[in-house]
């Protein structure tokens, strides 16, 4: 994939995207194997059931990432003049809402099981002429599958900033925290093993609260981007530094008195509006075009740029830092 809507991807991003697609398919394969493995041992443990459903839910971000990629590569058209980038945000929202709803349901189940003092039953299995407690198989399966998310979680966490992809970032973030759920389910099962029946429900509650928290964070982040909050970094930690860089860059032009920038995150790429108060009332077309070019040179993510000469700057746009510039450009 060399383009993303109207954006040409630089070589490093093409490479990162290919790598991300590979990791997503690997994750789907790995998760399907873990879902089947857990299905054999899920038994009467609420913690195991919760961890199992969490595994199923964890497929949603990967699937929505891969589906969204099919759409966002399409160039903008008259009917979709901004391209299809927002499909990624919609996928992000779907994943978040699914986590929120199912996590809430699982938390409710865990709490009501604890309140009713429901003692979890874990039976036995008959293998090779031996009757063995199913709990040992649960612990064995969970101990094996705990490893995977470390690898793909860290791999995706490295790719997400390169692609400025929030779905990928959230996916990686959840994978990196996945071991806590797996360990919690092991603790729950061993608790049942030694007769501490409530540890199972407590572990289930711990896991489901984690799911709800992920759902809340993802839904909130997705909604904020969909309603055009100021563009932020892929981890939503701070306003994206490109906003300030663009404003500063345009203000370097001699014909510009002051600038302010409004930038929204379309999902991977930005849509940039640069408001410019010119020194003189006469603004020439090539000056505007030069400013536009200068902005698009700054980063691959800012290809959709409009430069608007205006009498005064709108308050809500981010002004340049007003450093007196040495170069006239």
């Amino acid at each position, binding site marked *: 994939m060399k383009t993303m809507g109207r954006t040409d991807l630089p070589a490093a991003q093409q490479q990162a995207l290919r790598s991300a697609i590979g990791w997503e398919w690997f994750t789907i394969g790995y998760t399907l194997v873990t879902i089947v493995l857990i299905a054999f041992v899920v038994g009467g443990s609420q913690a195991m059931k919760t961890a199992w459903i969490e595994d199923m839910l964890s497929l949603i971000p990967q699937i929505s990432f891969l589906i969204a990629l099919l759409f966002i590569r399409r160039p903008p058209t008259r009917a979709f003049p901004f391209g299809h980038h927002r499909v990624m945000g919609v996928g992000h929202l779907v994943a978040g809402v699914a986590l929120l709803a199912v996590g809430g349901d699982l938390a409710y189940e865990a709490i009501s099981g604890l309140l009713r003092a429901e*003692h979890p039953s874990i039976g036995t299995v008959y293998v090779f002429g031996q*009757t063995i407690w199913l709990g040992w198989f649960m612990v064995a399966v969970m101990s094996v599958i705990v490893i995977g998310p470390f690898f793909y979680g860290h791999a995706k966490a490295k790719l997400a900033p390169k692609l400025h992809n929030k779905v990928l970032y959230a996916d990686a973030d959840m994978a990196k925290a996945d071991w806590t759920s797996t360990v919690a389910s092991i603790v729950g099962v061993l608790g049942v093993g*030694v007769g501490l029946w409530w540890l199972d429900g407590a572990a289930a509650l711990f896991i489901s609260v984690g799911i709800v928290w992920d759902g809340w964070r993802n839904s909130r982040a997705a909604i904020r981007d969909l309603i055009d909050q100021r563009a932020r970094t892929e981890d939503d930690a701070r306003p994206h530094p490109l906003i300030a860089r663009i404003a500063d860059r345009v203000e370097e032009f001699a014909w510009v008195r002051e600038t302010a920038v409004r930038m929204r995150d379309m999902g991977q790429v930005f849509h940039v509006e640069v408001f410019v108060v010119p020194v003189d009332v006469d603004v020439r077309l090539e000056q505007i075009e030069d400013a536009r070019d200068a902005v698009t040179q700054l980063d691959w993510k800012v290809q959709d740029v409009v430069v608007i000469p205006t009498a005064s700057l709108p308050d809500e746009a981010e002004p340049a830092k007003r450093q007196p510039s040495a170069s006239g450009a």
Partner: protein
Amino acid sequence: MLALALALCVAGCGLTVPSDPQGTLDRVRGGELRAGASASGELVTIDGSKVGGSLARLVEDFADSVDAKVTWSEGSEEDLVDGLEAGELDLAIGGMTEATPWSDRVAVTRAYDAVPGARGPVVLLVPLGENAWQAALEGYLDRKLAR
């Protein structure tokens, strides 16, 4: 680990088991097994106060294996499930299968298809969460009905 070690090796067969929050297995061993019966074909027959049938005999053999004597009580399936939930019964039989609708309220053993006279795999009901007890029962049935 101590509780686990205590619950190890019920019948000297090297079988590893968990433990019972209510201590059912420890209480039954060398004492009384309170079993509930609901009539079902050849599996469970009730003649006056005498409970018989192939499934009932299996339960009595299991009780022997833990040096316990069976005290039978008879009732509908729902009576038996209520008894298990209330801690008045340790086990219930009645030719139930894996499709039993009671699985939310009581623990259901694995299904055994080699029970004499059974038309299909049958399960036994035990109280929820008494995992050492359930493991002891399932282990006994596995050996008794070994394929």
